[in-house]
């Protein structure tokens, strides 16, 4: 039987991070993953991540995956793919299904980093082809280059639902509606705003009544729900759609931990069955750790730190690192994790209704129900200022741990401050060079450059643009407001792409002066999707 100092199950963000730490301390480490490529969900994440510089902020998920793989291979980690761990037995014996047989392996320590699986919600026709998990849609689009459908209805307004909806549009699908039974949007407001300004309608307090179709989805009927989540008769709306994406949360895949004898608990806030662990992720079974989503659903950035914590702790327990070094490293990692677990979307705030930001500003209700900041609300936030000449307008209204915009500006125009969750403040006295780095660095695509004095009659608005085909200078089109409505004609006056922008293009449009604080997206045609969607049944 092969022996390892450390056996890790799952080569996702937390498993790889744990492996890098442990192997770095000299542990003989193997990582098993049932998939044919490593990285877990990271390689599906084509959007820029939130966070600080240390947390890979503004780097796209798949690039973080590539970095982790390089680090792992440099550290001498053995990654075994298409290798399914089928059981964990007494004395840390592990069985792996690999190359057509079952191998027995023994680890002195085991880190289970198996991640999570998608939840489903049953409705009439939910077993029709065309009803898929949002993660499945992401796999099809971003790993295999397959468009999941033409017209998609998304159920679920958490970050997964919001991010995947945007990616579906990038892949050329039409997102006919975003539906959630909850009264308020669950994910980041900036993610919702990206969809709203493209014209995606939000139906909060709504749920799917049925999927239509005989052998595949041809349409969807949704209904409004009351506070008890019961459908209200007579509120049905129909949408033509060939795909229904379900993004209603994740469940930890914790069966291996249960089998290995760990004490488990049912914790709805962490996504379901999770092991009871100490602060290092060690379970009730000495030497068996849990890291990442399997021990509670969170973001990939937290999963990576959890992995590093468990990897370091395992190395210490096995005598590969001195107590002094261990304490130093773990203190740093724990602080990193704490900084990510702060702000409005912190795990501790799950299910809480937050009325005010840390700065004491009222939270936009419009953002929570319709997906965009209303024009009346926008001037409350410290990232919004009006002044002569070119300047950034930062439509960031929720406290999330993210601050790349601050470093993006070399002229100290943008300040988040020591507290990473603070709202960015625009300094009206600083000069804006128009370099656009802040626009491209904002993972939430919430920064615009506005010049209300572009010429006699017009203003210019520079916005982040991640769709193909790219508009060209001179194109005559239309501007959409934050709600996605066509508000005026717009001329494309500049299209900038640069390696420094990392595939975010900067599109500058010229609009009438009074539209400078309204125009937030560009459309080449005047149709608004909102007008055609949501017919009566």
């Amino acid at each position: 039987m092969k022996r390892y100092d450390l056996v890790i199950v799952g080569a996702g963000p937390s498993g790889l991070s744990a492996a890098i730490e442990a192997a770095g301390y000299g542990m003989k480490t193997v990582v098993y993953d049932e998939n044919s490529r490593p990285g877990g969900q990271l390689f599906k994440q084509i959007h820029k991540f939130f966070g600080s510089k240390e947390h890979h902020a503004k780097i796209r998920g798949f690039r973080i995956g590539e970095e982790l793989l390089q680090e792992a291979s440099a550290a001498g980690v053995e990654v075994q793919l298409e290798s399914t761990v089928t059981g964990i037995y007494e004395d840390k014996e592990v069985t792996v299904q690999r190359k057509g047989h079952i191998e027995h392996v023994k680890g002195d320590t085991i880190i289970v980093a198996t991640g999570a699986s998608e939840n489903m919600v049953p409705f009439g026709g939910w077993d029709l082809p065309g009803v898929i998990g949002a993660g499945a849609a992401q796999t099809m689009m971003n790993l295999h280059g397959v468009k999941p459908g033409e017209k998609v209805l998304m159920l679920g307004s958490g970050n997964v639902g919001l991010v995947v909806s945007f990616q579906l549009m990038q892949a050329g699908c039409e997102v006919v509606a975003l539906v959630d039974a909850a009264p308020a949007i669950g994910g980041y407001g900036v993610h919702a705003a990206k969809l709203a300004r493209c014209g995606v309608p939000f139906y909060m307090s709504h749920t799917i009544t049925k999927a239509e179709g005989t052998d595949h989805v041809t349409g969807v009927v949704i209904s409004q729900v009351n506070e008890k989540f019961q459908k209200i008769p007579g509120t049905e709306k129909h949408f033509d759609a060939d795909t229904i994406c379900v993004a209603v949360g994740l469940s930890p895949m914790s069966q291996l931990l249960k089998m290995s004898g760990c004490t488990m608990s049912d914790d709805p806030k962490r996504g379901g069955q999770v092991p009871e662990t100490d602060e290092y992720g060690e379970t009730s079974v000495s030497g068996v750790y849990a890291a990442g989503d399997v021990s509670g659903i969170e973001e990939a950035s937290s999963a990576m730190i959890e992995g590093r914590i468990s990897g370091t702790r395992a190395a210490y327990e096995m005598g590969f690192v001195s107590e002094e070094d261990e304490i130093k490293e773990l203190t740093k990692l724990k602080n990193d994790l704490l900084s990510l677990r702060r702000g409005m979307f912190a795990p501790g705030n799950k299910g809480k209704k937050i009325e005010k930001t840390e700065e004491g500003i009222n939270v936009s209700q419009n953002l929570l129900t319709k997906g965009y900041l209303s024009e009346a609300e926008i001037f409350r936030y410290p990232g919004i200022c009006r002044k002569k000449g070119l300047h950034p307008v930062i439509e960031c209204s929720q406290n999330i741990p993210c601050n790349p915009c601050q470093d993006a500006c070399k002229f100290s125009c943008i300040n988040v401050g020591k507290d990473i969750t603070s709202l960015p403040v625009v300094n009206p006295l600083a000069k804006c060079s128009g370099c656009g780095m802040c626009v491209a660095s904002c993972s939430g695509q919430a920064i615009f450059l506005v010049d209300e004095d572009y010429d006699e009659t017009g203003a210019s608005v520079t916005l982040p643009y991640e769709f193909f085909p790219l508009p060209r200078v001179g194109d005559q089109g239309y501007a959409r407001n934050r709600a996605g409505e066509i508000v005026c004609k717009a001329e494309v006056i500049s299209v900038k792409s640069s390696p420094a922008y990392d595939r975010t293009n900067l599109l500058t449009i010229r609009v009438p002066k009074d539209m400078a604080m309204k125009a937030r997206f560009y459309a080449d045609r005047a149709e608004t999707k909102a007008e055609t969607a949501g017919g009566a049944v």
Partner: protein
Amino acid sequence: MNEVNDRSRDIGPFIPGPDDDMIICRCEEITRGEIRRAVHDGMFTITEIRRYLRCGMGLCQGQTCAKLVKSIVAGESGAAPGTLEPATSRAPMRPVEMQILADEM
């Protein structure tokens, strides 16, 4: 005796519902109505439901339906969902062909 196992408790009669023919366990094609009826037949725990109906014992091993089955059983028997223990986790965690399972090394 915990609440879940108290079989003397009156859970009322089985009342047919409009979505009883909706499939819940897709692998084994078990409907909501079958699960609800099984509770009235006296299956109060997830383990019993699994053995009685085979839901959650197909290709995906309950990855998709486990939470759904749990909420239906809880709703029907009146137990709090948190008190219903999930099914036992056993090897193999993923479906394995017999010839592979037999080929240990």
